[in-house]
């Protein structure tokens, strides 16, 4: 009895604290924001809006990458630690293809004026397909025969990521490179709100993120394979006991999940750059998103991505200038809060 009552008060206190912790930053950003570059949102709505858009568009990319990770985990319980390496690999492959298509070799940085739409889309699709294939290969060679041994599989993917990262360093070198947006995207769009002009490239990222989300949702909810995957996420043994070819489904899911990582790499390489170390960053990003959102949940990946994107962008913009380097703490605090309240993530379920 006492335990029930005390846990209830504990929960109430917890919720109260949570409310304060969430409300304070919101109030700060909207009304106070002293010592920052922009000032509070009520007096500078333009910068607030831009930061909000930055956060949302960043979230779209986080979602694309994390969705692949969570799909693989949800169905196969495989923590694919090579996900970041796949991201980087996709970026590098697309880079090579783009540079070859545009010509003028010698590995020179391109300006978007030189790049047509097809010279961005084709590398995107090709890289995604190739990386999907690489993922599938890894799954068939190393992960197919030891299902259920989660830790062992995680270790195998770690080993693969070490090898991949070193080989990419050997082939592509340590200098940062980037993929060029096509000229069709590289322009500003007038949003007609508070005089905000926003770059179309980031809106493209948002559009792609939404499209991928919709496509995945449709696939999972409306197709037979998707239905099998959802069932498999719920109860793998039952699915295979019912005679469904679960191995084929696993293979497809791994292919799609890795392809998403590769696609994310192309986008990430376009808006930022590709260099050794990027793989580790994106693995971390995917992990954080999926931990927050819950493993195996697409909706969770979307929420997690949104939270992460908004947190990182608002922390960077609205912390007082002397404290910008604490922005990483905010990611940690976000994680800590979610874990304290929901140890399996917002939409997570136990194994």
């Amino acid at each position, binding site marked *: 009895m006492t335990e029930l009552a005390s846990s209830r008060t504990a929960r109430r206190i917890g919720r109260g604290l949570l409310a304060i912790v969430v409300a304070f930053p919101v109030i700060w950003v909207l009304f106070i924001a002293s010592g920052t570059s922009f000032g509070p949102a009520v007096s500078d709505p333009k910068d607030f809006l831009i930061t909000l858009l930055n956060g949302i568009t960043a979230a779209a990319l986080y979602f694309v990458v994390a969705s692949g990770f969570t799909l693989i985990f949800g169905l196969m319980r495989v*923590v694919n630690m090579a996900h970041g390496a796949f991201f980087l690999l996709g970026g590098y492959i697309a880079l090579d293809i783009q540079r070859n298509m545009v010509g003028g070799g010698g590995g020179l940085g391109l300006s978007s004026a030189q790049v047509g739409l097809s010279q961005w889309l084709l590398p995107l699709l090709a890289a995604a397909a190739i990386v999907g294939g690489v993922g599938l290969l890894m799954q068939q060679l190393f992960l197919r025969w030891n299902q259920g041994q989660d*830790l062992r599989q*995680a270790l195998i993917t770690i080993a*693969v990521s*070490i090898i991949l990262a070193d080989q990419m360093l050997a082939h592509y070198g340590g200098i940062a490179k980037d993929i060029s947006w096509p000229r069709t995207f590289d322009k500003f769009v007038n949003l007609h709100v508070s005089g905000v002009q926003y770059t179309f490239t980031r809106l493209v990222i948002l559009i792609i993120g939404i499209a991928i989300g919709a496509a995945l949702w449709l696939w999972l909810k409306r197709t037979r394979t998707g239905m099998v995957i959802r069932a498999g996420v719920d109860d793998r043994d039952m699915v295979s006991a019912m005679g469904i070819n679960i191995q084929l489904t696993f293979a497809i899911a791994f292919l799609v999940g890795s392809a998403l990582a590769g696609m994310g790499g192309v986008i990430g390489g376009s808006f930022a750059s590709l260099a050794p170390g990027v793989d580790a960053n994106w693995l971390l990003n995917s992990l954080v998103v999926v931990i927050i959102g819950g*493993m195996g949940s697409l909706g969770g990946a979307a929420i997690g991505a949104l939270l992460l994107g908004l947190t990182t962008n608002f922390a960077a913009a609205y912390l007082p200038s002397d404290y910008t380097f604490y922005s990483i703490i905010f990611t940690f605090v976000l994680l*800590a809060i979610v874990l304290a309240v929901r140890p399996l993530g917002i939409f997570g379920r136990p194994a």
Partner: protein
Amino acid sequence: MTLDRSVGLVFVVVAVLAPLIFSDYWVATLLTQALFLGIVAASLIFLSAYGGMVSLAQVGIYGIAGFALGNLTTNGNTKGLNLGWAEAPGVLVALLIAVLVALLFGALANRSYGIYFLMITLVFSVIANLFFGQVTSVSGFGGISGIPIPDFISRTAHPDRLYLATLAIAGLVYLALRYVARTPFGLTLQGIRDDPVRMSSLGYKVALHRTLAFTFAGFIAAVGGILFVWWNAQIAPSTIGLGATIDVLVIAVIGGLFQLEGAWLGALVFVLLNNYAQDVSFIGDRFHTLIGLVFLVIVLVSPSGLMGLWQRAVAGRPRAERADSAEAAGPAGLKPAG
């Protein structure tokens, strides 16, 4: 005396006599490094073998202890807080800070199991790394160098003393971990590893237990961190980056994830590989690929690492004193979803 015990004894004797047998470089650099890395790996293996929790946060905690010591004891450096404390209080406070952080991490992760636990602890380590990389008042990217070490084990004056001190501490750590595993606390922990639900229904506070076990392992890792800083005289965020975190996991796996002895065996193999792989001509710069391959092979062939291979080789001899169910059952939550 069993075969295990005699082999173990041989190792111990060789370790104690190492300054007489091996070159200075071997003793001061390679073997000392293997010893303190082994301590950190042992904290990981303790948690995984007896607690069923594979934690990647050990390196983060080891780093926090090291950075704390660096900040407290340096003086006149351009980096860090430069508090200029004496060694003894510095070490105590550094350990305390690391243990408190371990408590915090443990509390956050105590309701997560298996692979979730692995991922969350990995994120802890990486955030610790990023924290020290970005908060320039306590470290910054370059880290803190020129950290003083206690005079009585200074490397230049008494090159073997650090090795012997590390050896003694490693021995104590090993004995302590074996002992704790047999106390009621340790037995409860193993029970939680095997079946948390049943333990909870028996009235044990599972979450609290796991937090305390994690904190204890954090303390061990912190000890390793102090020794590391004394050995290296410097610490940087890259010491506890994703690479370093994975390295300790590699060590634990190579040695044997469910045997405490595996910690030091794995550390020795790793240190030697790291040191000599570059000299092999066709490997040269690509020694990371080699390490990745070795790791892959071991995981594919013998998931219980080298200690597992050893035990299979001498199969049939009594295993009474092992954490027996450890290997058979595997850490909870890592079994097939059921």
